[in-house]
């Protein structure tokens, strides 16, 4: 990364002037904390004893047998406390908030996973917590709304714009502008103005760091291929980052929704063009006039019209490959994993699984493939049921 939070031409800090002071303060504080052994030790201890790390790297024996090709490993982020990789970042940023002397945190959430993780971290540290969530998403993910409230968070319904994740993010930014002196904004993915994409990636790289150690222990060598789903892109960035300088292929999987040609999708890198949203320059789903268009995916955690700037850089530099997978393919992968491995994956993670399943049969038996299983699928029961009943998403 070059100066001022750029990854090649992507990144930066495109925010209202009111936030500049807070971002500079955060950047300075974080630069110290990333090198602070006491802080890092505190976070590692918390991730282990509270978060449940390390998560297993699991050899999916029956899936490997069924597909007949590469050996498939699953990085089990679904086994984290609160059920997804989001807790890694929420705990890290809650510690940062405490060091900044902020008594209050806010977050945006789409599927509710990041909201639940933030509410959890806030409860653990006695911080006040407000989560912004689109009204439509609150309906789709009612159980997560209840979880957040149980954890003591206030959940604010967002009705502006289209009432989904992008609008919840706008609302969180607006709220932050007004409360910036006492509030830290815990952004949930590797998006937003600098230093967020870097900081969130740093907090998620534990996924890749563990994977490296675990696969070396099991197989005695590095994997050939990593596959992870990409909405904003935090679990993919966390898995990929420690392998950027190694001969390991990286594949990011976006949501093709009902198909790229239908316009109902969330394939920002696959079908968007470069723009600026939520504080950084990156690929963006937008119309010809530069208005941001709504993303769609059956998976509420992937339907975001932006993407982290470092992913845009990895795409442009050719270091990573980005593909997309439809709702139907993701649901098929979801069902297969349930039956073959006794693991109910999140719909988000099912996109990565679907891509892996396409590739595995044509790879030889010595190839090592790791799928980022970013979360568990309990939250998706209603979506899956409705989809199977109608052959289409009910939402």
């Amino acid at each position, binding site marked *: 990364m070059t100066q001022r939070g750029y990854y090649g031409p992507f990144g930066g800090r495109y925010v209202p*002037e009111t936030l500049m002071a807070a971002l500079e303060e955060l950047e300075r504080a974080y630069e110290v904390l990333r090198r602070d052994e006491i802080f890092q030790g505190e976070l590692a201890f918390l991730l282990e004893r509270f978060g449940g790390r390390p998560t297993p790297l699991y050899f999916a024996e029956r899936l490997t047998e069924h597909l007949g090709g590469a050996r498939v490993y699953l990085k089990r982020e679904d086994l984290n406390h609160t059920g997804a990789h989001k807790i890694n970042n929420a705990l890290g940023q809650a510690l940062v908030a405490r060091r900044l002397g902020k008594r209050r945190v806010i977050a945006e959430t789409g599927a509710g996973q990041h909201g639940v993780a933030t509410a959890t971290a806030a409860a653990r540290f006695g911080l006040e917590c407000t989560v912004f969530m689109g009204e439509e998403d609150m309906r789709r993910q009612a159980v997560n709304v209840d979880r957040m409230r149980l954890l003591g968070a206030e959940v604010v319904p967002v009705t502006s714009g289209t009432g989904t994740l992008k609008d919840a993010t706008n609302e969180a930014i607006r709220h932050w502008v007004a409360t910036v002196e006492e509030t830290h904004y815990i952004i949930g993915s590797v998006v937003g103005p600098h230093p967020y994409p870097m900081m969130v990636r740093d907090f998620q790289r534990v996924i890749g760091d563990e994977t490296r150690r675990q696969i070396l222990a099991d197989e005695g060598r590095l994997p050939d291929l990593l596959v992870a789903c990409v909405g904003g892109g935090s679990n993919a960035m966390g898995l990929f980052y420690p392998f950027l300088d190694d001969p390991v292929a990286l594949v990011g999987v976006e949501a093709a929704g009902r198909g790229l040609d239908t316009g109902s999708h969330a394939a920002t890198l696959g079908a968007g063009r470069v723009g600026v949203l939520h504080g950084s320059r990156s690929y963006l789903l937008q119309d010809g006039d530069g208005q941001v268009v709504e993303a769609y995916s059956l998976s509420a955690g992937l339907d975001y019209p932006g993407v982290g700037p470092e992913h845009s850089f990895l795409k442009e530099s050719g270091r990573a490959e980005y593909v997309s997978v439809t709702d139907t393919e993701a649901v098929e992968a979801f069902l297969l994993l349930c039956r073959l491995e006794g693991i109910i994956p999140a719909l988000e993670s099912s996109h990565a699984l679907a891509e892996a399943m396409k590739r595995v049969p044509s790879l030889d038996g010595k190839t090592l493939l790791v799928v980022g299983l970013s979360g568990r699928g309990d939250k998706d029961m209603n979506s899956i049921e409705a989809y199977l009943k109608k052959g289409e998403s009910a939402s």
Partner: protein
Amino acid sequence: MSRLSSAFEGHKALVTYVTAGDPDLAVTADCVACLDASGADIIELGVPFSDPQADGPIIQRAGQRALRKGATLKKVLTLAGDLKGGIRAPLVLMGYYNPILSYGEERFAHDAAEVGVSGVIVPDLPFDEGGRLYGALERQGVDAVLMATPNAVPDRLAAVGSRSRGFLYCVSLLGVTGTGKSLYEGLEAYMARVRKATSLPLALGFGIDGPEKARLCASFADGVVVGSALVRLAEAFRDDAPRLLEETGRLVRSLRAVLDEVQTTGFQRPSA
């Protein structure tokens, strides 16, 4: 010399904002003429955007209505060109960065100059990131107006003060537009800090919803910006254009009257 700076000379300037295309572009044209005739010194035309981060619900809804009616940056530029000959007040385009980036920064600067726009305000483009656009505007003779905020450290105030053109837009509170939040407590001290940082005229905006706050703010600044209060009228009377123009004229004249009562010698251009 800058047309925008000149608008502050001799009196407290009244800067007004309307969202272009709400309720439609034809009514916006009539509204701008009304603002001009009723005593506005500078008229900001808001370019609608799907994700306006610095705006409260009133301007958000106006932008949504304008987008539904088909307003685009290109059409707003055309509107500005059409208005140019008929009004006295200089026009400022206020819009978010992505539509400008999509339009092309050089092309935008060129076209803005060509249709006679005097200034541009991009609330989500701080100068640190705006070199390309702000440089292009400078070359075209269009003022890039920057914003100052109450929480800015002295270095930051000095930087925005020296880089802004035309005037400096001083945000009166920590928050978004039109929320009715009370003004920043240390407003007077804040404006004194900004005054030290720049020789540009200072316009105070955000949350100035009527004559009473305008009077207070004008005592610290060279001018005030009124936006959401006008946009609220466009919402209330979106189906009744004659009434909208009548109410708009009434509000602007009342603002003009209180600003003219504030004792001032007007903004004094510092001698070079």
